[in-house]
């Protein structure tokens, strides 16, 4: 391959995971037969995954930049994929494949007629765009694409629960979005640019600056709300159980992590100059959220409500890791992020099988270890992962975080670490209760055990196998996380990758008459 072609490919690659679900999602709007639709959606998800993996491989060598419209950063929008972005993109694409599979396995004619496949595809596109964009305002747009798709999917079907929870979900997220727009405006007003790398360059040139910090805190509030940190995340635990299994699995596994990703991006790459205030806030929010999620999981009696609260708890862990603000903590957070995405996916897929098999959403069917022993094994494994017990990958990641927390040495870090330990204990208790009342016990005579077909069961098993794989390959995972954390730690890397070398020449403000009649037409 000649170098020019290679260059074209590397510059095109960051867009591929976005455009694939976008374009094929448009095709899904056509009135197709179900078989075609499923095939197309699956192909789109798989293709996205392949592109994302290629991208991940390519970012090992450096930041990949795709300039949209041929305009250089910071003037045009760029897609900039570094290790972090491409890693998140691959994780999301992976979840996407499982989601589409489960959607295909659980036919839902009414929702499908109203474009659930296309909306899901757009949701993927929005998520990918959020992970790969290198522009603050475009991040807002990406969030909106993702969120509107999720709003649409959340209320698609118009059941009572969906509408009630969907209304809450939309109102709360719209408020946060309004704040995000303001923050974008303020960022532009103060720093005069929107590109992440350029913002970072300028904020680094300014040094610690309180106005910039204030803008950073605004962004923190927004992303904390999108990531469902307590007390900004009341929308989460009701919404995720209200949607169909497949959609819910993707929501739970990925959507909150987008907020967390944005936090990492903004506070490592862009506003890293005055970290004390955001760190304190993140530690406090994280410590409270972990406990809240654990208590929430304990208070619930339905499969996906319990799991939704464990999602809240995992977000708290991530915030805790970010708030510690050390390379080790960031490394732990990134590893935990990956583990959390995969295990949440697996858990929701398991819940899907369990709900279908027992015919109820409550966790009290009893005795299912006799009917679904493999599912029981998967659940146990995932429960251990969620609670952070060995031999799971969750344990490795959690240990990394706990150690970083204890190394932090401050009182707040100590309290947050204690909160992390206590909440993992409570989570364990909550999940043990699920185990004990669903898998153990004597199944009551006469209550049906429905057969769940293998296409529905297989995703749960495969996702659990992925959880195992994460544990086995925890070494490489942590290695990758370390490399990513290092890359984020030296933010010159990202800036250099996007902005290139050399100073940026801004033209003087034109007077108008000099462009009135351009001599150099095309």
């Amino acid at each position, binding site marked *: 391959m000649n170098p020019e072609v290679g260059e074209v490919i590397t510059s*095109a690659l960051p*867009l591929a995971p976005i455009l694939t679900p976008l374009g094929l999602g448009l095709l899904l709007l056509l*009135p197709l037969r179900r078989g075609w639709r499923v095939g197309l959606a699956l192909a789109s998800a798989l293709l996205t995954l392949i592109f994302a993996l290629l991208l991940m491989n390519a970012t090992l060598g450096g930041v990949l930049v795709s300039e*949209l*419209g*041929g305009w250089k950063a910071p003037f045009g929008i760029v897609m900039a994929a570094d290790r972090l972005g491409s890693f998140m993109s691959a994780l999301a694409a992976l979840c996407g494949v499982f989601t589409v599979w489960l959607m295909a396995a659980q036919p839902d004619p009414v929702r499908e*007629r109203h474009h659930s496949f296309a909306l899901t595809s757009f949701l993927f596109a929005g998520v990918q765009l959020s992970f790969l964009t290198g522009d603050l305002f475009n991040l807002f747009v990406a969030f909106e694409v993702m969120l509107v798709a999720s709003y649409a999917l959340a209320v698609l079907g118009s*059941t009572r629960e969906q509408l009630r929870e969907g209304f809450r979900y939309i109102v709360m997220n719209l408020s946060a979005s309004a704040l995000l727009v303001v923050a974008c405006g303020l960022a532009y007003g103060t720093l005069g640019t929107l590109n992440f790398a350029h913002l970072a360059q300028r904020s680094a040139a300014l040094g610690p600056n309180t106005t910039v910090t204030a803008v950073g805190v605004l962004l923190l509030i927004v992303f904390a709300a999108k990531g469902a940190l307590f007390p900004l995340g009341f929308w989460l635990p009701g919404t995720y159980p209200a949607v169909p299994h497949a959609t819910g699995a993707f929501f739970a596994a990925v959507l909150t992590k987008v907020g967390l990703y944005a936090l990492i991006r903004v506070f490592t790459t862009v506003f890293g100059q005055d970290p004390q205030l955001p760190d304190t806030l993140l530690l406090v929010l994280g410590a409270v959220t972990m406990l809240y999620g654990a208590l929430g999981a304990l208070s619930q009696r339905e499969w996906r409500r319990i799991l939704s609260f464990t999602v809240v708890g995992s977000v708290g862990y991530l915030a805790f890791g970010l708030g510690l603000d050390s390379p080790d903590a960031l490394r732990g957070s990134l590893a935990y992020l990956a583990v959390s995405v995969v295990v949440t996916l697996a858990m929701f897929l398991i819940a899907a099988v369990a709900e279908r098999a027992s015919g109820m959403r409550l966790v009290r069917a009893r005795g299912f270890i006799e009917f679904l022993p493999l599912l029981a094994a998967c659940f146990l494994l995932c429960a251990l992962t969620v609670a952070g017990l060995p031999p799971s990958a969750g344990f490795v990641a959690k240990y990394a975080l706990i150690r970083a927390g204890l190394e932090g040495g401050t009182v707040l870090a100590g309290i947050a670490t204690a909160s992390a330990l206590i909440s993992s204990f409570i989570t364990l208790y909550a999940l043990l209760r699920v185990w004990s009342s669903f898998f153990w016990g004597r199944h009551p005579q006469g209550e049906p055990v429905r057969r769940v077909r293998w296409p529905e069961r297989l995703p749960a098993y495969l996702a659990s196998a992925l959880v195992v794989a994460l544990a086995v390959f925890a070494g490489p995972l942590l290695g990758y996380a370390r490399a990513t954390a290092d890359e984020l730690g030296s933010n010159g890397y990202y800036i250099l990758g996007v902005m290139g070398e050399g100073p940026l020449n801004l033209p003087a403000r034109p007077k108008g008459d000099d462009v009135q009649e351009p001599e150099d*037409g095309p």
Partner: protein
Amino acid sequence: MSPRRAAKRAVKAVADRPQPGDLLINDPILKTISRAAFALVMLFALLLLWRGHNAPGGGFIAGLMTVGALILHRIANGDSALRLDPVKFIPWGLALSLTTGLVPYLLGRSFLKSDYGYITTALTGEFEWATALLFDLGVYLVVVGAGLSLAYALIEVEPTELVEGDR
């Protein structure tokens, strides 16, 4: 039944049988005026779309104006001036915008790389073309489709309907 046909039937049904609470004003003078106004507004909207690249206007504004005109028409005349289901515009518009970006991308250039030039014909004089205009046309289509289908959908809502017997 496909959603298109359902929508079409629903549109017709509303037109045929005015229902209580519907926004139907069956006034002959209003009808005439609205037709004339409608034509004018539509023309103006197309002009805005055309000139948008160089003067205030563009896909959004033109689209919104068209939507406004069509809604007024619908309210005044009771039926849609469009014989198409507006929802159909959305995928086409999106596809158009995406394609203008996708073509250079697939040719190995940047996504959304725009191009423009001038064609001189005897009839129109110098005539500027720009791929950005195609993009804007896509925007226009989406805005028209979305705005109209929003309004039509809300017109269609059954007033007394309760989803499930909560009360």
